Protein backbone atom coordinates (compact mmCIF):
# COMPACT_ATOMS: atom_id res chain seq x y z
CA UNK A 1 0.00 0.00 0.00
CA UNK A 2 1.38 3.37 -1.01
CA UNK A 3 0.28 6.03 1.43
CA UNK A 4 0.30 9.71 0.60
CA UNK A 5 -0.38 12.65 2.90
CA UNK A 6 -3.78 14.12 2.02
CA UNK A 7 -3.36 17.84 1.42
CA UNK A 8 -6.94 19.15 1.17
CA UNK A 9 -8.56 17.06 3.91
CA UNK A 10 -7.17 19.23 6.78
CA UNK A 11 -8.95 22.24 5.23
CA UNK A 12 -12.34 20.50 4.99
CA UNK A 13 -11.96 18.94 8.40
CA UNK A 14 -10.93 22.31 9.87
CA UNK A 15 -14.08 23.92 8.43
CA UNK A 16 -16.15 20.96 9.71
CA UNK A 17 -14.64 21.33 13.14
CA UNK A 18 -15.14 25.12 13.36
CA UNK A 19 -18.65 24.72 11.97
CA UNK A 20 -19.42 22.23 14.72
CA UNK A 21 -18.30 24.63 17.43
CA UNK A 22 -20.39 27.45 15.98
CA UNK A 23 -23.42 25.22 15.42
CA UNK A 24 -23.23 24.03 19.01
CA UNK A 25 -22.51 27.37 20.70
CA UNK A 26 -24.20 30.12 18.68
CA UNK A 27 -27.09 28.58 16.77
CA UNK A 28 -28.96 27.50 19.94
CA UNK A 29 -28.94 31.15 21.06
CA UNK A 30 -30.61 32.21 17.81
CA UNK A 31 -33.10 29.35 17.96
CA UNK A 32 -33.96 30.45 21.48
CA UNK A 33 -34.34 34.13 20.54
CA UNK A 34 -36.34 33.66 17.33
CA UNK A 35 -38.05 30.34 17.94
CA UNK A 36 -38.89 30.44 21.65
CA UNK A 37 -38.40 33.83 23.27
CA UNK A 38 -40.63 35.70 20.81
CA UNK A 39 -43.52 33.18 20.66
CA UNK A 40 -43.44 32.78 24.45
CA UNK A 41 -43.62 36.53 24.87
CA UNK A 42 -40.27 36.71 26.73
CA UNK A 43 -39.04 39.50 24.46
CA UNK A 44 -40.86 42.16 22.53
CA UNK A 45 -41.33 41.00 18.89
CA UNK A 46 -40.61 44.56 17.83
CA UNK A 47 -36.97 44.03 18.82
CA UNK A 48 -36.61 41.55 15.95
CA UNK A 49 -38.72 43.46 13.45
CA UNK A 50 -37.69 43.57 9.78
CA UNK A 51 -36.84 47.26 9.93
CA UNK A 52 -34.63 46.89 12.99
CA UNK A 53 -32.77 43.87 11.59
CA UNK A 54 -32.20 45.45 8.17
CA UNK A 55 -30.92 48.58 9.92
CA UNK A 56 -28.55 46.39 11.98
CA UNK A 57 -27.26 44.86 8.76
CA UNK A 58 -25.79 48.19 7.74
CA UNK A 59 -23.08 47.57 10.32
CA UNK A 60 -20.28 45.54 8.67
CA UNK A 61 -19.51 43.80 11.97
CA UNK A 62 -23.03 42.35 11.97
CA UNK A 63 -22.46 41.11 8.44
CA UNK A 64 -19.21 39.45 9.44
CA UNK A 65 -20.93 37.86 12.43
CA UNK A 66 -23.74 36.51 10.24
CA UNK A 67 -21.21 35.16 7.75
CA UNK A 68 -19.47 33.21 10.51
CA UNK A 69 -22.81 32.04 11.91
CA UNK A 70 -24.20 30.88 8.56
CA UNK A 71 -21.19 29.77 6.52
CA UNK A 72 -19.16 27.55 8.85
CA UNK A 73 -22.05 25.22 9.79
CA UNK A 74 -22.62 24.62 6.05
CA UNK A 75 -19.22 22.92 5.92
CA UNK A 76 -19.99 21.02 9.10
CA UNK A 77 -23.14 19.66 7.48
CA UNK A 78 -21.37 18.94 4.17
CA UNK A 79 -18.65 16.88 5.86
CA UNK A 80 -21.14 14.93 8.00
CA UNK A 81 -23.43 14.23 5.05
CA UNK A 82 -20.45 13.12 2.93
CA UNK A 83 -19.29 10.54 5.48
CA UNK A 84 -22.80 9.43 6.43
CA UNK A 85 -23.70 8.76 2.79
CA UNK A 86 -20.45 6.85 2.24
CA UNK A 87 -21.07 4.76 5.34
CA UNK A 88 -24.67 3.90 4.58
CA UNK A 89 -23.51 2.27 1.39
CA UNK A 90 -22.78 4.86 -1.27
CA UNK A 91 -19.17 3.71 -1.41
CA UNK A 92 -19.09 3.73 -5.17
CA UNK A 93 -19.71 7.49 -5.05
CA UNK A 94 -16.71 8.14 -2.78
CA UNK A 95 -15.12 10.39 -5.40
CA UNK A 96 -18.30 12.31 -6.28
CA UNK A 97 -19.60 12.86 -2.74
CA UNK A 98 -16.98 15.44 -1.69
CA UNK A 99 -17.64 17.42 -4.86
CA UNK A 100 -21.40 17.38 -4.26
CA UNK A 101 -21.27 18.06 -0.53
CA UNK A 102 -18.52 20.69 -0.40
CA UNK A 103 -19.82 22.09 -3.69
CA UNK A 104 -23.18 22.59 -1.96
CA UNK A 105 -21.45 24.35 0.93
CA UNK A 106 -19.52 26.59 -1.46
CA UNK A 107 -22.75 27.45 -3.25
CA UNK A 108 -24.36 28.22 0.12
CA UNK A 109 -21.39 30.45 0.94
CA UNK A 110 -21.90 32.37 -2.30
CA UNK A 111 -25.61 32.78 -1.55
CA UNK A 112 -24.90 34.11 1.98
CA UNK A 113 -22.29 36.56 0.67
CA UNK A 114 -24.65 37.70 -2.11
CA UNK A 115 -27.54 38.29 0.29
CA UNK A 116 -25.45 40.11 2.86
CA UNK A 117 -23.24 42.21 0.62
CA UNK A 118 -25.26 42.70 -2.56
CA UNK A 119 -28.89 42.74 -1.46
CA UNK A 120 -28.29 44.70 1.76
Amino acid sequence: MNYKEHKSEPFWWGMFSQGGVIAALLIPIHIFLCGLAVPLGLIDPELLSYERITALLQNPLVKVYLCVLLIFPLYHAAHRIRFTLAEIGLHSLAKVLPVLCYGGALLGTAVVLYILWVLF
Partner: protein
Amino acid sequence: MSDLRTIKITVLRYRPEEEDEPTEQTYEVEFRDDWVVLDALNHIKDHIDGTLSFRWSCRMGVCGSCGMMVNGEPKLTCAAMLRDYYPNEVRVEPLVNFPIVRDLVTDMTDFMDKLKAVKPWIIREEEKPVSEGEYLQTPDQLKDYKQFSQCINCMLCYAACPVYGLEHDFVGPAAIALGHRYNLDSRDEGNQQRQHIIASKEGIWECTYVGECSVVCPKHVDPAEAIQQTKVATTTNRLKSLVMPWGNKK
Protein backbone atom coordinates in the same frame (compact mmCIF):
# COMPACT_ATOMS: atom_id res chain seq x y z
CA MET B 1 -17.27 -29.68 44.49
CA SER B 2 -20.54 -27.93 45.20
CA ASP B 3 -19.41 -24.65 43.64
CA LEU B 4 -19.47 -26.10 40.10
CA ARG B 5 -22.10 -24.77 37.72
CA THR B 6 -22.75 -25.72 34.11
CA ILE B 7 -22.82 -23.15 31.32
CA LYS B 8 -23.47 -23.56 27.60
CA ILE B 9 -20.71 -22.29 25.35
CA THR B 10 -21.51 -21.94 21.64
CA VAL B 11 -18.40 -21.62 19.54
CA LEU B 12 -18.07 -20.70 15.88
CA ARG B 13 -16.30 -23.53 14.04
CA TYR B 14 -14.62 -23.29 10.68
CA ARG B 15 -12.50 -26.13 9.37
CA PRO B 16 -11.64 -25.16 5.79
CA GLU B 17 -10.71 -28.72 4.78
CA GLU B 18 -14.16 -29.98 5.86
CA GLU B 19 -16.63 -27.16 5.27
CA ASP B 20 -17.12 -24.16 3.01
CA GLU B 21 -19.02 -22.04 5.52
CA PRO B 22 -18.50 -21.51 9.27
CA THR B 23 -20.85 -23.52 11.50
CA GLU B 24 -21.40 -23.49 15.24
CA GLN B 25 -21.01 -26.04 17.99
CA THR B 26 -22.33 -25.96 21.53
CA TYR B 27 -20.50 -27.42 24.52
CA GLU B 28 -21.62 -27.77 28.12
CA VAL B 29 -18.88 -26.81 30.51
CA GLU B 30 -18.76 -27.18 34.29
CA PHE B 31 -17.05 -24.09 35.59
CA ARG B 32 -15.79 -22.67 38.87
CA ASP B 33 -16.61 -19.17 40.02
CA ASP B 34 -13.19 -17.79 39.06
CA TRP B 35 -13.17 -19.15 35.51
CA VAL B 36 -12.96 -16.88 32.49
CA VAL B 37 -14.14 -17.66 28.94
CA LEU B 38 -10.58 -18.67 28.01
CA ASP B 39 -10.57 -21.27 30.84
CA ALA B 40 -13.74 -22.75 29.34
CA LEU B 41 -12.13 -22.90 25.87
CA ASN B 42 -9.04 -24.60 27.31
CA HIS B 43 -11.30 -27.03 29.20
CA ILE B 44 -13.09 -27.87 25.93
CA LYS B 45 -9.77 -28.33 24.11
CA ASP B 46 -8.26 -30.52 26.87
CA HIS B 47 -11.28 -32.61 27.86
CA ILE B 48 -14.10 -32.42 25.31
CA ASP B 49 -12.90 -31.63 21.79
CA GLY B 50 -9.20 -31.38 20.96
CA THR B 51 -9.91 -30.10 17.45
CA LEU B 52 -10.99 -26.62 18.60
CA SER B 53 -8.44 -23.96 17.58
CA PHE B 54 -7.88 -20.59 19.23
CA ARG B 55 -4.99 -18.30 20.16
CA TRP B 56 -3.91 -17.58 23.70
CA SER B 57 -0.75 -17.14 25.69
CA CYS B 58 -0.42 -15.22 28.94
CA ARG B 59 -3.89 -15.55 30.54
CA MET B 60 -3.40 -12.18 32.27
CA GLY B 61 -4.31 -9.42 29.83
CA VAL B 62 -0.76 -8.68 28.72
CA CYS B 63 -0.09 -10.59 25.51
CA GLY B 64 -3.16 -9.54 23.53
CA SER B 65 -3.59 -12.96 21.85
CA CYS B 66 -6.97 -14.12 23.12
CA GLY B 67 -9.22 -11.38 21.72
CA MET B 68 -12.53 -12.82 20.46
CA MET B 69 -16.16 -11.80 20.12
CA VAL B 70 -17.95 -12.80 23.33
CA ASN B 71 -21.71 -12.44 22.93
CA GLY B 72 -21.05 -10.05 20.06
CA GLU B 73 -18.59 -7.82 21.90
CA PRO B 74 -14.84 -7.74 21.30
CA LYS B 75 -13.22 -8.98 24.54
CA LEU B 76 -10.03 -10.47 25.86
CA THR B 77 -11.36 -13.92 26.77
CA CYS B 78 -8.87 -14.09 29.66
CA ALA B 79 -10.69 -11.15 31.25
CA ALA B 80 -14.31 -12.16 30.54
CA MET B 81 -15.67 -13.90 33.66
CA LEU B 82 -18.09 -16.76 32.97
CA ARG B 83 -20.11 -15.88 36.09
CA ASP B 84 -21.00 -12.54 34.51
CA TYR B 85 -22.81 -14.39 31.69
CA TYR B 86 -24.30 -17.30 33.69
CA PRO B 87 -27.07 -18.56 33.54
CA ASN B 88 -27.24 -17.36 29.92
CA GLU B 89 -25.18 -19.11 27.30
CA VAL B 90 -21.99 -17.63 25.96
CA ARG B 91 -21.31 -17.26 22.22
CA VAL B 92 -17.67 -17.13 21.24
CA GLU B 93 -16.74 -16.06 17.72
CA PRO B 94 -13.52 -14.90 16.09
CA LEU B 95 -12.87 -11.14 16.02
CA VAL B 96 -15.06 -9.61 13.32
CA ASN B 97 -13.57 -7.58 10.43
CA PHE B 98 -10.75 -10.13 9.99
CA PRO B 99 -10.67 -13.21 7.74
CA ILE B 100 -11.01 -16.50 9.64
CA VAL B 101 -8.13 -18.95 9.31
CA ARG B 102 -9.66 -21.70 11.42
CA ASP B 103 -12.30 -21.76 14.20
CA LEU B 104 -11.50 -18.78 16.44
CA VAL B 105 -8.20 -17.94 14.79
CA THR B 106 -8.14 -14.88 12.51
CA ASP B 107 -5.65 -13.70 9.92
CA MET B 108 -3.79 -10.71 11.38
CA THR B 109 -1.67 -9.92 8.31
CA ASP B 110 -3.53 -6.69 7.47
CA PHE B 111 -3.01 -5.29 10.98
CA MET B 112 0.65 -6.36 11.12
CA ASP B 113 1.36 -4.63 7.78
CA LYS B 114 -0.27 -1.41 8.96
CA LEU B 115 1.48 -1.56 12.33
CA LYS B 116 4.85 -1.86 10.60
CA ALA B 117 3.98 0.98 8.20
CA VAL B 118 3.56 3.55 11.05
CA LYS B 119 7.08 2.74 12.29
CA PRO B 120 6.20 2.24 15.95
CA TRP B 121 9.72 2.63 17.28
CA ILE B 122 11.96 5.56 18.26
CA ILE B 123 13.48 7.19 15.19
CA ARG B 124 16.52 9.45 15.65
CA GLU B 125 18.16 11.51 12.97
CA GLU B 126 21.41 10.77 14.72
CA GLU B 127 21.99 8.48 17.70
CA LYS B 128 24.11 10.13 20.36
CA PRO B 129 27.17 8.15 21.44
CA VAL B 130 26.72 5.82 24.42
CA SER B 131 29.35 7.83 26.30
CA GLU B 132 26.92 10.77 26.44
CA GLY B 133 24.53 8.72 28.54
CA GLU B 134 20.79 8.05 28.44
CA TYR B 135 18.07 10.10 26.78
CA LEU B 136 16.53 11.69 29.84
CA GLN B 137 12.83 12.42 30.08
CA THR B 138 10.83 14.38 32.64
CA PRO B 139 7.71 12.84 34.23
CA ASP B 140 5.64 15.32 32.19
CA GLN B 141 7.25 14.17 28.94
CA LEU B 142 6.52 10.56 29.90
CA LYS B 143 2.92 11.45 30.72
CA ASP B 144 2.41 12.86 27.20
CA TYR B 145 2.55 9.43 25.56
CA LYS B 146 2.27 6.88 28.39
CA GLN B 147 -1.38 5.89 27.94
CA PHE B 148 -0.84 5.27 24.21
CA SER B 149 2.13 3.02 25.01
CA GLN B 150 -0.13 0.59 26.87
CA CYS B 151 -1.46 -0.95 23.63
CA ILE B 152 -0.99 -4.73 23.49
CA ASN B 153 -1.96 -5.13 19.80
CA CYS B 154 -4.99 -7.24 20.70
CA MET B 155 -6.98 -5.79 17.77
CA LEU B 156 -10.23 -5.48 19.74
CA CYS B 157 -10.39 -1.88 18.49
CA TYR B 158 -10.33 -3.08 14.87
CA ALA B 159 -13.20 -5.46 15.57
CA ALA B 160 -15.15 -2.63 17.24
CA CYS B 161 -14.48 -0.01 14.56
CA PRO B 162 -17.39 0.34 12.10
CA VAL B 163 -15.19 2.35 9.74
CA TYR B 164 -12.62 -0.46 9.51
CA GLY B 165 -15.52 -2.86 8.94
CA LEU B 166 -16.55 -0.86 5.87
CA GLU B 167 -13.20 0.38 4.67
CA HIS B 168 -10.42 -2.16 5.00
CA ASP B 169 -7.79 0.27 3.78
CA PHE B 170 -8.32 2.34 6.96
CA VAL B 171 -5.03 2.30 8.90
CA GLY B 172 -7.14 1.87 12.02
CA PRO B 173 -7.17 2.80 15.72
CA ALA B 174 -4.25 0.85 17.25
CA ALA B 175 -1.73 1.54 14.46
CA ILE B 176 -2.52 5.28 14.45
CA ALA B 177 -2.45 5.46 18.26
CA LEU B 178 0.95 3.74 18.30
CA GLY B 179 2.33 6.08 15.63
CA HIS B 180 1.00 8.95 17.75
CA ARG B 181 2.67 7.45 20.84
CA TYR B 182 6.09 7.77 19.17
CA ASN B 183 5.30 11.20 17.70
CA LEU B 184 4.60 12.40 21.26
CA ASP B 185 7.83 10.92 22.64
CA SER B 186 10.42 13.61 23.37
CA ARG B 187 13.22 11.23 22.25
CA ASP B 188 11.66 10.64 18.82
CA GLU B 189 12.37 12.59 15.63
CA GLY B 190 10.36 10.47 13.18
CA ASN B 191 7.20 12.59 12.89
CA GLN B 192 7.85 13.40 9.22
CA GLN B 193 8.43 9.74 8.37
CA ARG B 194 5.04 8.78 9.81
CA GLN B 195 3.07 11.74 8.52
CA HIS B 196 2.47 10.36 5.01
CA ILE B 197 0.63 7.33 6.40
CA ILE B 198 -0.97 8.83 9.52
CA ALA B 199 -2.29 11.90 7.64
CA SER B 200 -3.18 9.97 4.48
CA LYS B 201 -6.72 9.53 3.22
CA GLU B 202 -6.63 6.01 4.69
CA GLY B 203 -5.24 7.36 7.97
CA ILE B 204 -6.82 9.84 10.40
CA TRP B 205 -9.17 11.35 7.80
CA GLU B 206 -11.10 8.10 7.40
CA CYS B 207 -12.09 8.15 11.10
CA THR B 208 -15.52 9.59 11.91
CA TYR B 209 -14.93 9.62 15.69
CA VAL B 210 -17.40 6.87 16.57
CA GLY B 211 -15.23 6.14 19.61
CA GLU B 212 -15.96 2.41 19.98
CA CYS B 213 -12.20 1.69 19.79
CA SER B 214 -11.68 3.53 23.06
CA VAL B 215 -14.72 1.85 24.67
CA VAL B 216 -13.49 -1.71 24.05
CA CYS B 217 -9.79 -1.19 24.74
CA PRO B 218 -8.84 -3.50 27.63
CA LYS B 219 -5.80 -1.36 28.48
CA HIS B 220 -7.70 1.96 28.62
CA VAL B 221 -5.86 3.41 25.66
CA ASP B 222 -7.89 6.12 23.92
CA PRO B 223 -7.19 5.68 20.17
CA ALA B 224 -10.11 7.96 19.25
CA GLU B 225 -8.41 10.75 21.19
CA ALA B 226 -5.06 10.00 19.49
CA ILE B 227 -6.74 10.38 16.10
CA GLN B 228 -8.56 13.55 17.16
CA GLN B 229 -5.35 15.11 18.53
CA THR B 230 -3.54 14.25 15.29
CA LYS B 231 -6.32 15.79 13.18
CA VAL B 232 -6.08 19.04 15.14
CA ALA B 233 -2.26 19.11 14.95
CA THR B 234 -2.21 18.30 11.22
CA THR B 235 -4.85 20.94 10.45
CA THR B 236 -3.01 23.57 12.53
CA ASN B 237 0.32 22.75 10.86
CA ARG B 238 -1.26 22.90 7.42
CA LEU B 239 -2.80 26.28 8.21
CA LYS B 240 0.55 27.53 9.54
CA SER B 241 2.38 26.37 6.41
CA LEU B 242 -0.18 28.22 4.25
CA VAL B 243 -0.07 31.43 6.28
CA MET B 244 3.68 31.29 6.90
CA PRO B 245 5.23 29.22 4.09
CA TRP B 246 8.68 30.35 5.19
CA GLY B 247 8.12 28.92 8.71
CA ASN B 248 9.89 25.88 10.05
CA LYS B 249 7.80 22.84 9.07
CA LYS B 250 7.72 20.69 12.17
